[in-house]
């Protein structure tokens, strides 16, 4: 009798344990969208995992953060919430500091020369007043402002985007007063938001 009770208890505890584990822990796959870098997974600032190539982990349900270990890199969407079995895209991009370093006067002049080649008729009427590189330095956002506006009038501002593909820069879509996913469907949404707010 005691033996059966013991077996029953063991089976019960094992079943309960399995049930608790699968209810609370979920398999999460991490896939790099481009270049792989060392990434740390943190929960409440405590490291729970680390990977340098596509990997998967059993993580307890809740909120986590990813951090790129290499200096000058960051993660595009660092916060993720584990609720179910899921796949997380890991997009390692340059940090703001690194992007600012890359954006030298020489770089901006070079890129804007490409821009003005396409709008030579407007080069006297507008000037670039805000500029910023995004992601891995392969997206360039600018804000153009009408020049020579009479005092008391507010100048018109227009926002434009350029992208480097295979080493060559080109203008994406047309500059707009406000960029939207409809006017620039090929541009990552986060970049559109940031340029609008420049």
């Amino acid at each position, binding site marked *: 009798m005691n033996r059966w009770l013991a077996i029953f208890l063991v089976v019960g505890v094992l079943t309960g344990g399995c049930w608790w584990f699968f209810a609370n822990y979920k398999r999460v796959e991490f896939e790099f969208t481009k270049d792989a870098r060392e990434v740390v997974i943190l929960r409440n600032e405590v490291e729970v995992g680390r990977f340098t190539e596509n990997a998967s982990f059993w993580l307890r349900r809740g909120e986590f953060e990813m951090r790129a270990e290499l200096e000058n890199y960051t993660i595009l969407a660092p916060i993720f919430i584990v609720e179910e079995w899921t796949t997380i895209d890991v997009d390692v991009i340059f940090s703001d500091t690194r992007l600012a370093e890359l954006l030298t006067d020489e770089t901006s002049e*070079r*890129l804007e*020369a*490409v*821009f003005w*080649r*396409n*709008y030579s008729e*407007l080069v006297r*009427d*507008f000037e670039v007043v805000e500029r910023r590189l995004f992601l891995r330095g392969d997206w360039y956002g600018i804000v*153009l402002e009408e020049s020579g*506006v009479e005092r008391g*009038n*507010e*100048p*018109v*501002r*227009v926002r*434009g985007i350029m992208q480097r593909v295979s080493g*060559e*820069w*080109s*203008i994406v*879509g*047309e*500059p*707009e*007063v*406000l*960029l*939207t*996913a*409809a006017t620039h469907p090929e541009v990552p*949404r986060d970049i*559109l*938001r940031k340029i*609008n*707010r420049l």
Partner: protein
Amino acid sequence: MKQVQHEQLTDIQRKWLRIAFVLVIGFLVVWVIGVQISRIGRVAVEVKFAPFDAVVELDGVRVRNGSVNWMREGKYIVTVEREGFERVEREIEVAEEQQILGMMVAVDDIGRNITLRRSRDFMMVESLAGGLARETGRREREDWPILRHLPVRNMLFSIGSEIDEDGELVVVVRLGSGAFQEAAVRELLRIEREDEDVDLIDYNIRFEGGENPFRRNGSSIGGTE
């Protein structure tokens, strides 16, 4: 003897009762199945044109006015006719369960008398249309949270909205002059900043009264270093 005859009659009655019962149930089952089959691929459309004795036709086929009709999805021409009233003709698109509502306008004394006599029909359509408008407004504000903040009107610009041919919301910015364009942009960005549900990049935004000299009617622009 009388007792036996009574029992025989009862048996016959029972037999007929059973047959009648089976026939009724059979008829009901066949009818229900037939109705359900006839509704396959159709959606429920409530047609209500006041007065409800007006003749409503969709693509020339008469439908029940003041009641639910089961129709295939697609575009239809609705015509509504009734003596004493102006004929109604309009195009509708049936895509989901919906209501087609309308009120006819009296053109002579006959129509005016009917309007008075059947005032309940008109009141019902009016109240349904009001409810529908409120529901549509609620849904639109859920789908397009920016509507919670519109319209915006001031001395320099107004920001409103309209629905385009594809059923998409267009945020329309009307400017007193191009000089106020950036002020309107700042207002839109303020709305986005203060309401986390609003993401400006998800909206079609049209500026009227200003100009964008960089726009070349959608021609592709390229350039290399």
